[in-house]
């Protein structure tokens, strides 16, 4: 492999990993507050379709992204109203949200399938993007990729040293104890769910506005699900999530490269690679029970009733 190919593989790796990174960071915050939202796929698809339609009609990418985030948040608030407000089973509610989002997005987007738009263009930062190998990967991306770097830093810092992050962790570990200390358990959870929804919407918007600027039914192709697995196998740590997301990106690209080189391997088998590789590697690094326990939100998925 020559340098150019490697440079391009690294560049594509980050691009492909970005939507996964964004949605997984959102789900991380949500899960650490103790709420398991399995509706990622549905929220992403709604973000993708809303973002696409808005940009197509108004011509504004910014507006498209903003409304993609809003769509994701609205979907997550629907989840929150049922799972937190009415204390319904979180797993069932999340699954229903995915099914609902998949169907609704297909219905809304039916008329727009195959319509092309001009997607988000990369912005190369002068000089920095000229660095061999990693220059293109880090400094010749589009704005959302740069934003995802920032989001990663933000979430990492949030759990490491912010007071609100501490509250989220406390609420996810033991909401009853948190409540007895006077921490706003329900408000924290609503906010965490909303953040997760917004991130899923943004990731969906990225897919339909930047990654492949078009709308296709079910275009997320299971990324919402792999993000859920990613959060668990990354043992709820942001640093492992970014690693897993780019690993997924790398495996996806290598699959294309291998296909391009013409090896006689079934394309179906290759298409499976990114999913299998990501899960496998993360299972291996998360096998240290002691360390994983440190980050696991113990109240994950269990409803909480603040009784009076």
């Amino acid at each position: 492999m020559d340098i150019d190919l490697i440079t391009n593989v690294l560049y594509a790796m980050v691009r492909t990993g970005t939507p996964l990174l964004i949605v997984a960071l959102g789900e991380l915050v949500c899960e650490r507050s103790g709420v398991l939202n399995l509706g990622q796929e549905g929220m992403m698809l709604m973000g993708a379709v809303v973002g696409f339609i808005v940009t197509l009609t108004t011509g504004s990418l910014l507006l498209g992204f903003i409304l993609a985030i809003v769509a994701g948040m609205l979907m997550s608030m629907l989840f929150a109203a049922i799972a937190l407000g009415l204390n319904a089973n979180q797993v069932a509610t999340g699954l229903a949200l995915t099914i609902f989002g998949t169907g609704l997005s297909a219905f809304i987007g039916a008329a727009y399938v195959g319509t092309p738009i001009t997607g988000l263009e990369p912005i190369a930062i002068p000089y920095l993007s000229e660095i061999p190998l990693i220059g293109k990967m880090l400094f010749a991306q589009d704005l959302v990729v740069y934003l995802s770097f920032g989001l990663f830093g933000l979430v990492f810092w949030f759990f490491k040293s912010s007071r609100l992050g501490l509250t989220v962790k406390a609420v996810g570990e033991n909401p009853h104890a948190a409540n007895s200390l006077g921490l706003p358990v329900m408000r924290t959870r609503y906010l965490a769910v909303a953040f997760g929804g917004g991130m899923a919407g943004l990731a969906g918007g990225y897919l339909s506005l930047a990654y492949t600027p078009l709308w296709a039914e079910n275009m997320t192709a299971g990324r919402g699900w792999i993000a859920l697995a990613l959060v668990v196998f990354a043992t709820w740590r942001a640093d492992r999530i970014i690693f897993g997301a780019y690993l997924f990106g790398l495996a996806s690209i290598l699959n294309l490269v291998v296909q391009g080189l013409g090896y006689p391997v079934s394309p179906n088998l290759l298409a499976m690679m990114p999913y299998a590789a990501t899960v496998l590697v993360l299972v291996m690094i998360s096998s240290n029970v002691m360390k994983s326990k440190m980050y696991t939100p113990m109240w994950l998925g269990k409803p909480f009733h603040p009784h009076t």
Partner: protein
Amino acid sequence: MNRQVSATLSGQLRLQLKGITKQYPGCLANDQVDLEIAAGEIHALLGENGAGKSTLMKMIYGVTKPDAGEIIWQGSRVEIKDPSMARKMGIGMVFQHFSLFETLTVTENIALALGDEAGDLQLLAKKISTVSKQYGMELNPDRHIHSLSVGERQRVEIVRCLVQDIKLLILDEPTSVLTPQEVETLFVTLRQLATDGCSILFISHKLKEVQALCHNATILRGGKVTGDCVPAEAGATKMAQLMVGVDTPISSNYPKATGTEVFLAVQDLTNSSEDPFGTSLKKVNFSVRRGEILGIAGVAGNGQEELLAALSGEHLLDSSDPVKFAGLGVGLLDPRKRRELGLGFVPEERLGRGAVPEMSLVENTLLTGFLQGLLNFGFINQPKTEQFSQRIIDDYKVKTPNNRTAAQSLSGGNLQKFIIGREILQNPQLLVAAHPTWGVDIGAATAIHKALIELRDKGAAILVVSEDIDELFLISDRLCAICDGEISPAKATLETSIEEVGRWMTGVFEPTESAVSEQLDAALNTRSIN
């Protein structure tokens, strides 16, 4: 009323409750309760479980509100809306079940409770160090909670109250999780706090401790105040009668037994724990004879869970020999097979392992009673199961509306009576009971102790693992202690003392012969160097 309060602050009332009444559906939890605590006073609130102690303190701490009555704080009438308001007023509370977050550090836990006042975490960490040293409860602010012992966790809860400006500290059964030595240290701290002017409300059902620590006591029964007294002057019997009523018998002494042949033999049981926070067992040796009760003392987390799992069969061993029932190696047998060989088991957690919380008492009877002919070819014999559960309820005076009640709606003491009864009525040859009276009121504890003694006298071998050292002295015929996965040699209860068992609990016990010679060598070496 005879008040005995630190001289400097006497007379100044810090908290006054007048006619506090709280009605819950179907139960009058507090009925016209009056209580007065002066500044710098250590005041005991005595009562059995269900006497209304928790309800009363919840109202003082702002968790619930009284239906009637007045709370007067430092002379003026107040309405305490929520715990954060109580904290701002200077009321701190140490819960029986700690409200700590395992995955966070000491500093982070305390910062969460302080809210916006926490400020910079590094400054807070320094303050925690200072305050904890000042009161003789040293703590490392950077440790994660899961790595702390139960005693240390309690310190975190206390220090959490102390870093604020505290005027009244409420402690709910604080000594139930501590070794005798730790209890002494806690009392020193509390006395020092009281001298500094902090009032302390000490909730307990242990009369000895109340007598050793408290200036005054208010005794509750059935939601009503049944008396006030000065514990140091009033006799233990009088206080106990006020707590449980005159008609409840109180156990004081049981005859000791020596037992006959060995039933349970544990030989060189070594077992590494799978739980990252667990304790591995190291060459554990002991035996229990038919017709005796062996007590194992120890602070929680020293290998009790691992030992119990190895005995009950929840954790299978690598070979059958380390655990023997009447000479038969059972190390590879599952819990059911061990039960068939005569094992009865009362686990530590009542809800979740001793009983299924959501299921009725009838269904819970079946949980371990299935060997008592309650099954017909795999189908449940409903009438027989009902009968058996009713027998447990009647024989062990389990207070419950009926046998269809869910296990989780019974009080701790009643559920424990039910579980113990269920095991004993199966006539076990070996009963292993973990913390049989933990959080159980005196009346129920006495009933449980009597049942155990009766079972012993019928010739069963009984092993009791408990953190309550007084209980072990009361019912055990022989005693030993567990510390860090090792077991001390056992001694007849009458030949040992609380101090000696306390030392065993901290790992100081007579070493085996080889270890003695090693120590001797080491001592000689040091001498020659000097």
